[in-house]
């Protein structure tokens, strides 16, 4: 089922890539859109609170004033407040489903997943309490149903639903408590959102401006076209029979009319616990985490800057070498993506005097092994369009491509590839071109691998690809798992292009032997 859902997500992604460009693709901006909608809710909420009267009888009239008398500002703000809250629910659930389908919730990512579960509760507490304060018929229904639901827990001495028995029983103090909840819950939600992204380096909390502008314009037009309205003043002497529910927040309430409150509590609490345990059902089988080789670490901190999960930090030097700091890996945060070794300046295959051991690398996938594979896999390629593909194990796989004259090296993430490896392969004539195939653009399995590769190859991010590497001899294809057709076509075009270029001299058997010996020396 997850595979089918993944295929559905990728198809939607492809459509959105065309309509929005990969950089603006809303499906890849769900978290950032969540933040954006949250801020709209907060700003509109502050405006509404300025005019809102917290008295029981005055609350409804103050909201009506905002809706009708001040429709041009207060009315729009009220509608924005509602629709942005609803949009927040939509993107939150899509975000949750997407991370599940793409298997991005296990291992060290459990923290974001579990904190997300807590956020769901806070989101619903914020939204549902918002419907109370309007004190219309919907508010009356929600307030009574909610308090009756809480009473089913049996934790209150006297049922709190008694506060809504009739007109006389509702106290102003209790109503003020509801308003306090509606202010406190969103603030706690904000704190939770901040915690949620704490383990991410460079978290994206702002969507691209164009996408944000599009969403805001859509919400404003919707607010003008279909403004949020109250459903008549609350009257505790009557029972609302037909109610227009906001199904995004209140979908569970009709169930309370058919099943016991305790059963519904068991379902929502059990569901939350089950979802929270998903990262360990089963636990991910992870590669060994990155290790630091102090002999080759000069404390440059490039790995710290590139690690997408803040798993590396700089600590005082412990080995007496004349550097102030050294890298240290936190195993509980490391996802074993190898991006750190791609960032390490000492991961250069040109080294001859010492073994190819970078300052930091994956023990199960050392940089020396990458060099060895370059030497061995390109051995049988011939002609003037020999292509070496570096692909990501979570991204596009072209191993089954029908054309010949290419070899593929699969890395945990293409961000693990040091740019010097491309220089080495081309300058030593092991192939005529390099084809980098990874996850879909802006959808890297390890968040930032694609971005760092693009910037390194564009000479915008350290370690830079050397200027001498001819741009026409390497290309990137961010087609993702389902982009086989696209990858095939781009590989074909690339091979044709290479064939038209004047071929570089082939690697002499002697120099191949020399590089191989260096590799053996390093292995020894």
């Amino acid at each position, binding site marked *: 089922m997850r595979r089918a859902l993944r295929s559905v997500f990728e198809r939607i992604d492809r459509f959105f890539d065309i309509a929005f460009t990969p950089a603006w693709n809303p499906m890849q901006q769900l978290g950032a859109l969540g933040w954006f909608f949250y801020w709209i809710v907060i700003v509109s909420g502050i405006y509404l609170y300025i005019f809102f009267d917290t008295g029981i009888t005055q609350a409804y009239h103050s909201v009506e004033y905002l809706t009708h008398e001040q429709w041009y500002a207060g009315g729009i703000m009220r509608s924005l407040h509602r629709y942005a809250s609803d949009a927040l629910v939509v993107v939150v659930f899509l975000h949750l489903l997407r991370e599940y389908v793409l298997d991005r919730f296990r291992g060290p990512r459990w923290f974001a997943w579990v904190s997300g579960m807590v956020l769901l509760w806070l989101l619903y507490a914020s939204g549902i309490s918002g419907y109370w304060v309007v004190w219309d018929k919907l508010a009356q229904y929600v307030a009574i149903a909610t308090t009756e639901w809480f009473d089913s827990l049996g934790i209150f001495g006297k049922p709190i639903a008694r506060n809504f028995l009739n007109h006389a029983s509702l106290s102003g103090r209790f109503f003020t408590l509801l308003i306090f909840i509606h202010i406190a819950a969103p603030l706690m939600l904000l704190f939770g959102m901040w915690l949620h992204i704490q383990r991410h380096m460079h978290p994206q909390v702002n969507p691209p401006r164009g996408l944000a502008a599009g969403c805001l314009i859509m919400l404003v037009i919707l607010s003008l076209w279909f403004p949020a309205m109250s459903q008549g003043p609350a009257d505790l*002497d009557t029972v609302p029979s037909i109610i227009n529910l906001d199904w995004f927040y209140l979908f569970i309430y009709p169930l309370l009319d058919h099943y016991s409150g305790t059963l519904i509590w068991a379902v929502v609490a059990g569901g939350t616990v089950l979802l929270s345990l998903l990262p360990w059902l089963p636990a991910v089988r992870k590669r060994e985490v990155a290790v630091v080789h102090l002999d080759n670490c000069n404390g440059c901190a490039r790995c710290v800057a590139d690690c997408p999960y803040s798993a590396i930090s700089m600590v005082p030097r412990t080995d007496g070498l004349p550097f102030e700091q050294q890298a240290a890996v936190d195993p509980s945060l490391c996802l074993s993506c190898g991006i750190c070794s791609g960032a390490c300046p000492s991961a250069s295959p040109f080294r001859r005097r010492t073994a190819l051991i970078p300052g930091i690398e994956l023990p199960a996938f050392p940089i020396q092994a990458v060099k060895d594979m370059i030497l061995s896999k390109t051995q049988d390629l011939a002609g003037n369009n020999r292509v070496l593909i570096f692909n990501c194990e979570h991204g596009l796989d072209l191993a089954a491509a029908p054309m010949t004259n290419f070899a593929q090296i699969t890395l945990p993430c293409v961000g693990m590839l040091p740019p010097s490896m491309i220089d080495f392969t081309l300058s030593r004539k092991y192939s005529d071109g390099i084809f980098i195939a990874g996850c879909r653009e802006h959808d890297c399995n390890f968040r930032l691998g694609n971005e760092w590769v693009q910037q390194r190859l564009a000479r915008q991010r350290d370690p830079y690809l050397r200027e001498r590497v001819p741009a026409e001899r390497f290309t990137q294809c961010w087609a993702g798992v389902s982009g086989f057709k696209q990858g095939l076509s781009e590989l074909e075009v690339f091979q044709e292009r290479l064939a038209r270029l004047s071929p570089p001299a082939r690697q002499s058997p002697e120099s191949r032997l020399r590089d191989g010996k260096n590799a053996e020396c390093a292995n020894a």
Partner: protein
Amino acid sequence: MPEIWRMILQLPFYLAFALLLAYLSQQPAYQHQDPGHALIKLSLSHAGEHKEECRRLTPEELAELAPNMRRPISCNRERLPLLVEIVLDDNLLYRAYLAPAGLSRDGESTVYKRFPVTAGTHTITARLRDSNRLEGFDYEHSEAISLSPQQNFVIGFNADTGGFIFL
């Protein structure tokens, strides 16, 4: 692709999103209760009598107690459960023994119940027993009432004002 085409392609997405928000934020309407029905809510909180009557301690029993604990009267804290009955037009709507709250069963017994009934004229009888009598009730109130559709009718209780209150 020219920017204008891209924007045109984006429009269906924004439109679909807006329609989804507009529709599900209010529709489909939910019928919480039949519009022809009224609602009777029973809500009471009352402490039953003590399960055992207080008794005077004998001089021997007093002598066994520490000097500062020698109260002549001993009262068991536990209270009796309430028996509550609601009868609507000779049909028993609700009958339950309500246990007192608290670990020592010395608190008030509480009930909060909702009963949707058809609108119209009904005779409602509410009865409550809070003593250890075996037959009959300590409080009873009966009244013919006319319930209009969607009316919220509350049956409350206050022993100080004579028992049941129909609101």
